């Protein structure tokens, strides 16, 4: 039996952390701070190397015998191929401007979550292998040898970055830490080190067209079931065209909108909008996913998953693509699509069939964000609203990282919310627009085994929500990203339990006055509307 320590011994317990340098601190894989490894079957589907059974807590990660050479060659190839990586490795002067801008750092207090230090994990190996100073001076020049412990550290910390790019906003050199993370993850893939929550959805998307692995009939059933819910609330019957050839527009949204709470209410909002304006559109049971977990895997996977949307647009013969409220889909479309799979010359420059507005910003990608589309409809007076139907809500808006920082989409969602809601309150300035804080669960980190880390990463966002909840009674956090909708809901339950999460088009759907509709007594969630409750 263990000896009970004396009061003198107890008083000597030191709660202060070790003062060892960061290179001497190996990773401690605490439960809740890492994700399960990629399943062999997912790696095989994606044709990624070294499929096997392993977990990060195992001593032996079953790496290939020549793993150091593989990483070295992979690093060299990428430095040659991507000029940005070479610049990001060489340029940083360690000014520290990014240090306290990362949500994981702010929530955890772990210095290796400072973007500068996270990048140093990679840069230190770069110096050792690819710079003269590093080769000669070693540690004095901030260089170190790649060891298994370093590889474990890479895995731990590059899966503690959501590629949200907030740090890049503050970097005087514009170093894109998200791209550093992307490269590190690519290197890890070369030796089979990755996480299942990214690879399995990507593999499912390869085989079924969406991350959830919904087969066409299930996708159709889900949509029909949501149409029944719409009919219950509004009395309006909607038939959603699927795989219809020759429609004006192909509508693509994250599959989570069709399947998961609270995204389904946003989806109901889209359908009501399309019905309201009589849009000639179709959805596809093959391009049934807007999200692209390839972005979190590697260039090749991102390219393949993105291409299916365009292949389907071509097959169906539509004029252009309308995209739903997704986050990273828009980073891929806005920043990578054009050079990967574009320009999509077989499509037309998007033109709203209702207002005649030409979306010249999408002239090359041919894909329009639904908030741009809806904001244009409102501006032209094409939509009839009763905003009182959202009076039971006090709403704030979370700028989802990718639409905000990768597209600069700040005004359209706000413009829409202000038209359909009477109670809107902004969060503090340093937490919104280009300075928005991540949900803490992006880049495929939205899995339950990672809960502690997600709560840490989400703390800065939650602090701002808590503020507007206490000050203005905000009880609804709206956003334009499917991962946000799912993960902010959990985040709120931990930090600000009185706040729920919605998409912007859920609020649109509540407020839209449909021709021939029943008197609305509930919102799309079937919750009673203030002052409009059913008498029975």
């Amino acid at each position, binding site marked *: 039996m263990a000896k009970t320590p004396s009061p003198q011994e107890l008083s000597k317990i030191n709660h202060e952390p070790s003062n060892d340098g960061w290179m001497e601190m190996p990773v401690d894989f605490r439960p809740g701070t890492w994700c399960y490894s990629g399943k062999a079957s997912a790696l095989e589907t994606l044709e990624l190397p070294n499929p096997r059974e392993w977990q990060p807590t195992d001593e032996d990660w079953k790496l290939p015998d020549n793993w150091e050479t593989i990483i070295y060659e992979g690093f060299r190839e990428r430095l040659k191929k991507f000029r940005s990586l070479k610049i990001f490795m060489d340029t940083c002067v360690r000014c520290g401007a990014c240090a306290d801008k990362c949500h994981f750092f702010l929530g955890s207090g772990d210095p290796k979550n400072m973007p500068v*230090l996270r990048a140093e994990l990679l840069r230190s190996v770069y110096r050792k292998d690819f710079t003269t100073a590093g080769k000669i001076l070693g540690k004095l020049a901030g260089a170190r040898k790649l060891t298994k412990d370093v590889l474990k550290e890479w895995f731990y910390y590059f899966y503690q970055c959501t590629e949200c790019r907030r740090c890049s906003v503050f970097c005087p050199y514009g170093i894109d830490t998200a791209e550093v993370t992307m490269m590190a993850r690519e290197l890890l893939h070369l030796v089979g080190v990755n996480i299942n929550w990214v690879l399995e959805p990507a593999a499912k998307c390869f085989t079924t067209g969406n991350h959830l692995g919904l087969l066409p009939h299930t996708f159709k059933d889900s949509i029909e079931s949501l149409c029944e819910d719409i009919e219950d609330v509004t009395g309006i019957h909607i038939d959603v065209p699927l795989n219809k050839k020759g429609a004006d527009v192909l509508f693509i949204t994250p599959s989570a909108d069709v399947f998961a709470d609270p995204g389904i209410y946003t989806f109901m909002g889209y359908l009501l909008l399309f019905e309201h304006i009589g849009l000639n559109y179709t959805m596809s049971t093959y391009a049934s996913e807007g999200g692209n977990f390839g972005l979190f895997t590697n260039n090749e996977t991102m390219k393949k998953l993105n291409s299916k949307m365009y292949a389907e647009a071509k097959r169906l013969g539509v004029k252009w693509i309308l995209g739903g409220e997704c986050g990273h889909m828009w980073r891929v479309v806005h920043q990578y699509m054009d050079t990967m799979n574009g320009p999509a010359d077989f499509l037309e420059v998007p033109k709203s069939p209702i207002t005649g507005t030409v979306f010249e910003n999408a002239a090359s990608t041919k894909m329009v964000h639904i908030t741009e589309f809806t904001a244009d409809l409102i501006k032209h007076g094409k939509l009839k609203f009763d905003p009182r139907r959202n009076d039971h809500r006090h709403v704030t808006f979370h700028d989802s990282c990718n639409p905000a920082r990768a597209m600069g989409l700040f005004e359209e969602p706000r413009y829409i919310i202000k038209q359909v809601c009477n109670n809107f309150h902004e969060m503090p300035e340093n937490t919104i627009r280009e300075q928005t804080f991540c949900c803490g669960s992006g880049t495929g980190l939205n899995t339950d085994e990672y809960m502690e*880390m997600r709560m840490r990463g989400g703390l800065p966002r939650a602090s701002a929500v808590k503020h507007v909840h206490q000050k203005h009674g905000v009880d609804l956090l709206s956003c334009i990203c499917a991962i946000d909708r799912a993960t902010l809901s959990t985040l709120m339950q931990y930090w600000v339990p009185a706040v729920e999460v919605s998409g912007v088009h859920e609020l649109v759907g509540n407020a839209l006055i449909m021709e021939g509709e029943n008197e609305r007594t509930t919102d799309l969630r079937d919750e009673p509307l203030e002052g409009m409750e059913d008498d029975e």
Partner: protein
Amino acid sequence: MKLKSCLKEKRATILERWYQAIIDTYPSESAKHFNNQDPFANPVGFTISDTIGFLYDSLLREEDTEEEIAQALDSMVRIRAVQDFSPSQAVAFVFQLKKVIRAELSGVIDSEKVSEEWGRFEERIDRLALVSFDVYMKCREKIYELRTHEFKSRAWRLLERANMVGVISEESSPNC
């Protein structure tokens, strides 16, 4: 009452040292960033500062109910419950107050005149520690509840959509 007036007089210094002791539980490279007192740019530092101020005054007031104290502790313990701390490390900040006061008021505490008052004050600090452990446990339970909830709702939705679960409607429920 002598101790209480000293504690009131030295409030700012004691709080500053207590704050520093808590900040020192984080790695030194990080600790220096926690001095920014913008609640949104630095939620951890701000919450610590805000919480310990309330707790200190509460210890002196001796009026707050356990529920009110738990509420005040919540924001700070909720953060430490998800950070890289063991349970004892997460709530040890309460005991650090004793150490800080001893260092700051050693002459006063050593005097026999206040020993009884100090004993009672220490008991209140111990009580605070126990409440903070209750709060810590609630937070940890919540983490596991959230994990289970996410897992269950995902599985349930899949089964429901695949028509693999029966739905018991009100009409078909047997009258019990």
